[in-house]
């Protein structure tokens, strides 16, 4: 009850007394005017229906925790949103049936470690036709989230197998494009001024909650030919894959698939010269796993 309402209650209750017109009654009325609002307020306090009257603010704290830097507070709270985590994903660990050879093993894996915005990123892919002849690349990148779907990656790439190793500087983007398409696009430069580019896109199509088809497309291009690695200048190769995996657990999924590998332009000529086919359709079998 507000003070004003209480006062008006007091006035109405005091009115009949004024009519008595005696000095004492007038005094009583005056007293009533003063006391009635107080009584009304007390009544409001006792009214169990009123939340305002029932609510009791807490006493000030007797002890306070001083303000402290975030790291110290996070440690005391046992709650830290800046914690770092890692993940290793072997997306492809497979054996491909190649037409002209006995087949070869292929891998494509990545790992990261870091916080929500900055991560150390490792990528590697390659193939090993025989145990002694592994050929591929490894990249060590710094990954920084720059927009809500994309991160910027910069670092180094190292090609191994097929002769002497070769180093590149790397700069690229990685992210999730509309329609749930994972994209990696990276350009590379070596100290001799050669340039290279790599583009990879993939998505997941669910047939069931565990049976998932993964289409994938990878393109590589080079500004200069490298005979030792069967790389011609221009668009060097296209690797398109379809992998149907079954997630026994989310972390463990064997798969069957089909890959179409095409060497184009100068790369194709290099291959033909070596007596190999420039494009191939390959069956493959493998397992995808992560932790």
């Amino acid at each position: 009850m507000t003070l004003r309402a209480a006062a008006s209650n007091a006035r109405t209750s005091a009115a009949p007394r004024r009519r008595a017109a005696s000095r004492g009654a007038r005094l009583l009325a005056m007293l009533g005017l003063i006391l009635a609002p107080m009584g009304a307020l007390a009544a409001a306090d006792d009214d169990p229906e009123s939340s305002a009257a029932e609510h009791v603010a807490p006493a000030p704290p007797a002890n306070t925790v001083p303000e402290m830097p975030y790291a110290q507070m996070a440690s005391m709270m046992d709650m830290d949103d800046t914690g770092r985590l890692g993940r290793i994903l072997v997306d492809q660990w497979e054996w491909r049936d190649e037409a002209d050879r006995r087949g070869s093993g292929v891998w494509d894996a990545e790992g990261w470690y870091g916080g929500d915005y900055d991560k150390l990123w490792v990528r590697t892919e390659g193939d090993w036709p025989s145990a002694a002849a592994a050929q591929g690349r490894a990249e060590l990148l710094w990954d920084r989230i720059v927009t809500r779907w994309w991160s910027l990656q910069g670092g180094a790439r190292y090609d191994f197998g097929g002769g002497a190793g070769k180093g590149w500087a790397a700069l690229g983007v990685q992210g999730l494009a509309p329609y749930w398409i994972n994209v990696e696009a990276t350009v590379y430069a070596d100290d001799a001024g050669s340039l290279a580019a790599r583009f990879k896109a993939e998505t997941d199509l669910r047939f069931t909650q565990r049976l998932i088809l993964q289409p994938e497309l990878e393109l590589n291009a080079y500004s200069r030919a490298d005979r030792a690695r069967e790389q011609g200048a221009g668009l060097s190769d296209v690797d398109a894959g379809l992998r149907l995996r079954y997630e026994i657990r989310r972390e463990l999924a064997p798969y069957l698939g089909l890959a179409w590998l095409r060497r184009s332009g100068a790369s194709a000529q290099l291959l033909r010269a070596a007596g190999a086919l420039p494009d191939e359709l390959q069956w493959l079998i493998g397992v995808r796993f992560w932790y």
Partner: protein
Amino acid sequence: MGINARGGAQPARMCRRQFVQGMAGGTLLLGAGGLFARTAAPGSTPGPMPAPLSGTQFDLSIDELAVNYSGAQRLATAVNGQVPAPLLRWREGDVVTLRVTNRLRVHSSIHWHGMIVPADMDGVPGVSFPGIAPGATFVYRFPVTQHGTYWYHSHSRFQEQTGLYGPLVIEPRGGERHRCERDYTVILSDWSDVDPEHVYATLKRQSDYFNFHQRTVADLHADIARQGAAAAGANWALWARMRMDPTDLLDVSGAVYTYLMNGSTPSANWTALFSRGERVRLRFINGSSMSFFDVRIPGLTMTVIAADGQDVEPVSVDEFRIGTAEVYDVVVAPADDRPYTIFAQAMDRSGYARGTLSPQPGMQAGVPPPDARPLLSLADMGMAMSGMPGPPAMDMAGMAGMEDMEDAPGMPGMSHDAAAAPRSRSHSHYGPGVDMLAANPQLRLHDPGVGLRDNGRRVLTYGDLHTLGGAIDAREPQRDMELHLTGHMQRYLWSFDGRKFSESRPLQFRYGERLRIVLVNDSMMTHPIHLHGMWSEIEGAQGEFQLRKHTVTVQPGQRLSYRVSADALGRWAYHCHLLYHMEAGMFREVVVAREAGAGEP
């Protein structure tokens, strides 16, 4: 857990010896027989629930306890050897003293959820106090100035997930408003055999890991058959373009959770006894870490009499959704001499908690099948707008598909919403940690939420709830504070206004002020938002007082406001009560302080 309130008041104080014996009994029960009872065949009756602790003096001991909910033995975090922690019964007007001893190897804490206590008794490490070190005892002591159903839980890391939660019932000074012959607390929770640290890391590595309800090619095919290729394709494209998943209802699901009712698995079937014609009060507490439950008792109408411990105008419903940390007291009056199933299905229908109201031990009624798996609608994306032509909103380039409009029943208070138009925002404002913004958030106080709309049952909404006694403070708010509930599902980032706790400054409340907090849910998840130390008084469509809560559930695409009286000096926690969201940064510190030079309000 059963409190038989038959014949009036509970014996108030237990002498210390009785109390210690009671505790030992509980420990033994859980240590030996209790474990077997939990894994017993479906339909068997679990052992008697431990007695509540009542009085003004309490000794609570936090320790590890071996439990077995799924066939595998795991270590839980228990209080006095019990999971859930023992029911505490207090009396309004008493001063309670709780000596809490931590027997874990790590720090611990207990927060009295919904209790108005001095800041240093609130139990949030780093904010209220330094926490309870291993082997140490912290003495909580505060006057109890409210009544109703509340709960308590650890505020340290994932201890709440591993079992440190328990019910709290405070008897009103003037006696209960609703006389009931039976009175039970029903605390719902989610147990995982997997270490919560690993669950959290898994969400960071692959956020849809626990969702086994995702859209498949077969679903698209079914949509084409039902709606035609154009409409189905447009709807699929809308979601795919936004990189949003309409099946993303709960981050952690029944794939890894066993849902518990008073610590009993569905097969162990927690049972509450009644006699025909009795009025039974069920005090539902959502003590889970990450779950929303839709609760109903087939065959019975539930009369909701209190929300978050606050008495409300009684409202009869068939079903209610209870958000994490929310509390609803209901009364049922079973007319028949038969068992009734208390059915609490997870919001994503991936599992359920279940118990039985029964005239005799050992009986059970049928368990209903889970409802169809719901899909988020355009309303949940904050896109429910009434015939707005104009340019497409931020994210939804060229979106059509307004047919989901009817998904948001009622659509009340357009005028109020229009008056309080959202402030200008953009992704550049919030940074890369926010995956979407609600283009046109609505109040939707009468919207029961995804999966409960038009299900043929009478479902409780905030719009149905009116707290008795009005607001605690009649003043108009002196200022507004707008906060957006934001996140990035793919990256599993959660925040207010795009800033994680580590990137934020404390929110400053002036001591004595009345302010309005406006929450806008820009994310696709439903978030239960809990302000410590002060009540959240939700406003209706016209800004009038609607209901008083300690935890406010904000649906995706919803914009709601509540008033707060900053009458509690000190530092307080303010956060999403989904535990992994809080840990990921959906947390703010609130400081209530006197302005320099200002006197008493």
